[in-house]
């Protein structure tokens, strides 16, 4: 690959940065659509460059598709240097193509969606910066630069979720997202420092090539590093127990949700695990933790998603659940499958969110399932594209989601440790997934139109992105057909030595999971179309289960129980893991505790000069007393 092209990769990140600065500074003077167009173009250009890079990369033989392009020396830490450089390889290239393409589409959509917004240019400025941070995160060639992008997306999500800050809930949700992410980042940064401590470098090449030499398989340090890194991923990718910010992140504008859920931010954790798979390979414990956290999150949030009534909330839980799948994938060493699912999820989840935005646009911002119905006739484009998205999500044959999800499940199946359990939970989750998404589709689009509403299809600038994404949500899967599996071949140089499946196993598992997901759709169809009274009677019959799910597993009640019956160790564990309230409560309690302390400690500063002198004297006495003990 020629160096000009490699140099131009810098502009993949720089274009959105410039776009953000320009739109942010000159925003006052830009007419409304113009700011959006400039912002969209800057992301579009990034996409163009990544495509060019892609085509020149695949011309090379697979072994030579790795470039570590250093732009300048960034920071000398101790005796070792951290460079500002980009790592161009199939993995990062695939990621930037997905990120920039999906973001571009979302930018376009936003021009229509936000056209009445007062702070139009500010919105696009943040959006561009968000994309730039994500691209930086993906392209970084060392952990420090990765962290910079990592924090950047955190900051931008804070600004964007709280974009409608005059809504208190929005501002609070923004803060919550940021603070929860900071908790994860605490572990992540510690992990980075530990890497530096162990390898004396933060560069990927150095770390990954030395990792098998320095760390033995299953060593404690490898486990510590990977678990700390995973702590960051849990925060950023909204896994148990740090997922609580994501459902609240709905408070931002809908395209922002699409961006957060599909292309940027939450997938960062999956990418990071895949990127550092060399380290994870060294620690079976961490791999197990990743897989289990993933599948349990997937199941947990899918089951919650079944009974929610807010469209965006359903989609949020769906994202958490799908991210769980991705972590399951990377946790069972099926890295390319995980990344493949990341990609197809990016397409269909962006599609679903934008459709949800289109529904809101059509029905004056309504997101409650109980108040929406019969929109099929009025929103034809939205309807068809959303159905495609839903099919893809539920893994309907021929869609992207079908291939990617089954790829993961097949790998889980052959995992030696608890593989069958992971797989079993995975296909049950698949059934739940197709149920909740089609429940939503059937309720929203079938039935009679609500009175007094005048739904209307969205403008072209919004439907066009839907169509593009719908196409991608279908054809995106064909890069991963079980037999040819282009994506696997493309990524295989990155993930050397990972498992390859026999197509026999794959076919077997596909069949089973197909039955489950079709079953889910059929159940939804039966419940909500054929026999609409059934859900009500079911609700009565299985009142316990329904209530359990509606109340998000009765976390409060379980919590009560723990204190009432302290003997129930197991339920205590579940409550710890499951309890959103508990986690929220912990965060709030800690905050309160610190504030109380803060008020207490400030009382030391009494304002009396003589007290101050006394405190200095006490400090001196302690200091001298300590040093006196050292005299001998």
């Amino acid at each position, binding site marked *: 690959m020629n160096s000009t092209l490699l140099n131009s990769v810098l502009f993949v990140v720089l274009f959105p940065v410039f776009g953000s600065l320009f739109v942010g500074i000159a925003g006052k003077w830009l007419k409304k659509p113009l700011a959006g167009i400039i912002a969209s173009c800057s992301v579009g250009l990034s996409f163009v460059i990544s495509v060019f890079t892609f085509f020149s990369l695949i011309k090379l033989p697979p072994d030579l598709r790795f470039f570590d392009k250093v732009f300048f020396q960034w920071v000398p830490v101790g005796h070792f240097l951290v460079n500002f450089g980009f790592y161009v390889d199939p993995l990062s290239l695939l990621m930037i193509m997905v990120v920039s393409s999906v973001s571009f589409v979302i930018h376009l959509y936003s021009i229509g969606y936000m056209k009445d917004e007062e702070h139009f240019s500010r919105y696009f400025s943040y959006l561009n910066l968000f994309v730039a941070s994500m691209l930086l995160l993906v392209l970084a060639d060392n952990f420090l630069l990765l962290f910079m992008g990592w924090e950047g997306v955190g900051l931008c999500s804070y600004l964007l979720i709280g974009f409608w800050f005059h809504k208190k809930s929005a501002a609070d949700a923004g803060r919550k997202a940021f603070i929860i992410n900071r908790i994860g980042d605490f572990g992540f940064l510690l992990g980075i420092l530990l890497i530096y401590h162990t390898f004396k470098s933060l560069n990927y090449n150095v770390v990954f090539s030395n990792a098998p030499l320095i760390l033995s398989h299953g060593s404690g340090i490898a486990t510590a590093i990977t678990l700390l890194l995973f702590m960051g991923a849990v925060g950023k990718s909204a896994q148990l127990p740090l997922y609580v910010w994501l459902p609240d992140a709905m408070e931002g504008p809908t395209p922002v949700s699409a961006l957060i859920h599909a292309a940027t931010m939450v997938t960062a954790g999956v990418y990071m695990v895949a990127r550092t798979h060399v380290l994870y390979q060294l620690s079976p414990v961490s791999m197990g933790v990743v897989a289990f956290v993933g599948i349990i999150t997937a199941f947990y949030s899918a089951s919650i998603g079944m009974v929610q009534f807010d469209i965006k909330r359903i989609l949020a839980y769906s994202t958490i659940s799908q991210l769980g799948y991705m972590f399951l994938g990377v946790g069972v060493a099926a890295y390319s499958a995980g990344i493949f699912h990341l990609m197809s999820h990016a397409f269909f989840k962006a599609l679903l969110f934008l459709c949800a935005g289109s529904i809101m646009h059509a029905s004056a911002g309504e997101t409650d399932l109980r108040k929406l119905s019969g929109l099929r006739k009025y929103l034809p484009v939205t309807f068809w594209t959303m159905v495609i998205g839903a099919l893809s999500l539920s893994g309907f044959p021929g869609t992207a989601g079908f291939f990617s999800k089954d790829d993961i499940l097949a790998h889980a199946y052959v995992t030696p440790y608890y593989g069958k359990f992971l797989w079993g939970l995975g296909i049950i989750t698949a059934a739940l997934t197709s149920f909740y998404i089609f429940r939503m589709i059937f309720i929203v689009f079938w039935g009679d139109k609500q009175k007094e509403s005048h739904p209307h299809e969205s403008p072209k600038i919004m439907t066009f992105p839907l169509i593009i994404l719908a196409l991608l949500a279908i054809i995106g899967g064909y890069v991963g057909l079980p037999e040819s599996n282009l994506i696997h071949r493309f990524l295989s140089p990155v993930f050397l030595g990972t498992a390859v499946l026999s197509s026999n196993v794959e076919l077997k598992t596909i069949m089973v999971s197909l039955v489950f997901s079709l079953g889910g759709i059929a159940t939804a169809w039966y419940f909500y179309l054929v026999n609409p009274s059934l859900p009500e009677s079911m609700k009565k019959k299985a009142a316990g289960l329904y209530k359990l799910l509606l109340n998000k597993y009765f976390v409060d009640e379980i919590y009560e129980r723990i204190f009432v019956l302290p003997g129930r160790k197991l339920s205590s564990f579940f409550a710890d893991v499951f309890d959103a309230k508990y986690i929220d409560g912990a965060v709030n309690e800690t905050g309160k505790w610190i504030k109380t302390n803060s008020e207490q400690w*400030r*009382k030391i*500063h*009494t*304002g*009396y*000069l*003589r007290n101050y*002198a*006394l405190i200095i*004297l006490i400090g001196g006495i302690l200091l001298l007393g300590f040093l006196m003990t050292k005299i001998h």
Partner: protein
Amino acid sequence: MIPIKLYLVLSGVLFVIGTSGVLVRKNVLVMLMSVEIMLNAVNLAFVSFARYMMLPKGQVYVFFSITVAAAEVIVGLAIIISIFHKKESMDVDDMNVLKG
């Protein structure tokens, strides 16, 4: 010759007495005097060290210390007078608007 220990102990005692003055008194002027006692105690330590090691430079330090003490007193008194003009009080306990 008198043991140097005695001088040093005397210096330590004077230093502590000076410290106690800062802690006990409410009158700013006396607080300032107490600080001066502390500085004097240090000077005594300097001189006795100098004398016992026969290093005259120890006395030079005392010379500087005295000069600085004089400058401190000038500034301190200027501040005290301007406070007095405002509040008609020498009591440090009257000055606790700033706290927390």
